[in-house]
């Protein structure tokens, strides 16, 4: 997961339209996969740090919790229904969003496209 997140970080920093969309986003997001915590701290759209948990001290704005198999399906070039969107994962019971959901919604396109950056094919724009 750490390598995947590093790849997503690299792709984000080389995707000008995403950096533009996220230019007002400076928050920490908790990504939890099979119980493993990853604290992603964004500043002005750039992913500054990826810090592995567990941590009870790290504040976060919102959290997206899921499992590795669901993420693997989410990152397929053509995901199955329900696995095609982070809200789909929530709908089918394979994901959960906690915290300041409005902060997520205000930056929804940015975060969904960021989460799509690990998709097997370079189709993140339309699949995020």
């Amino acid at each position, binding site marked *: 997961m750490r390598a995947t997140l590093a790849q997503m970080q690299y792709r984000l920093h080389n995707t000008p339209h995403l950096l533009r969309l996220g230019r007002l986003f400076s928050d920490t997001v908790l990504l939890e996969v099979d119980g493993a915590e990853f604290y992603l701290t964004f500043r002005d759209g750039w992913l500054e740090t990826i810090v592995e948990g567990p941590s009870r001290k790290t504040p976060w704005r919102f959290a997206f919790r899921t499992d590795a198999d669901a993420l693997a399906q989410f990152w397929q070039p053509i995901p199955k229904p329900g696995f095609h969107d982070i809200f789909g994962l929530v*709908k089918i019971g394979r994901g959960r969003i906690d915290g300041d959901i409005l902060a997520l919604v205000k930056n*929804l*396109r940015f975060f969904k496209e960021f989460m799509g950056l690990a998709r097997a094919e370079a189709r993140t*724009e339309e*699949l995020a």
Partner: protein
Amino acid sequence: MSFEPITGRYLNITVQGRRQRIYVETEGKGTPVLCLHTAGADTRQWRHILNDADLTAAHQFFAFDMPWHGKSLPPEGFQTEEYLLTTEAYMETVLAVSRALGLDCPILAGCSMGGRIALQLAALHGDAFSGFIAIEASDFQPAWYDIDWFHRPDAHGGEMGAALVSANISPFAPKAERWNTLWMFMQSGPGVFRGDLSFYTRDDSLIGRLAQIDTARTRVHLLVGAYDLTCTPEDARRTAAAIPGATCTVMEELGHFPMSEHPAGFRPFFLDALTRMKVPADV
């Protein structure tokens, strides 16, 4: 010169005592079909159908922008009111447009909230139409989100709405049409998507009316995309099962905006639905 065949004109009608200037697009000859767009969008969702020469050879399609949407203005005095669509106003608008266009029992084809109101009209005004194609339509879905997210001074409701509804678009949708579909939501007027969602997520009156729908008189066919998270195939199947004689088809590679997000994928399902409208219900 390469104009598309679609013609757009404005219609002035009165709905619930208020003047409304309605934008209508039309094309074709033959069986009249009145098309309704989804929440937070407009008539452009239907442009691929209206530009389909094979379909327009035998059907005259009409699509109109609801008040507050697309090129239809809000009514006079809108600047101080909160837009909240109601079942009654929606039904009266559709009926008034159909009358003003001089349509004789058209087929009604609506998507999402347009599909919901098509089923309401099937229950309460079935004699005004010759059939109902209810796309991504179901009895009721409460919102899992806060509709107030989409009308607030510190964020762009259209951009947030587009990001939300992108969850309902199939990964099979061509990229260009995915983004054309989302652009309509981005352009939606302030508070309009929220006002549509108020109708869609709070009025459950259709549930008790489904059994009233007389499919022996007018056919009802539901179409639902497998990638639709808002109106899932289970929602559409449940709704169809509650309407004696209604039929339902699941479109495996499509989402919540099929005529807009993936026109080529939607076409055979829509053609089949139009064909079903001509077949007596007891066959």
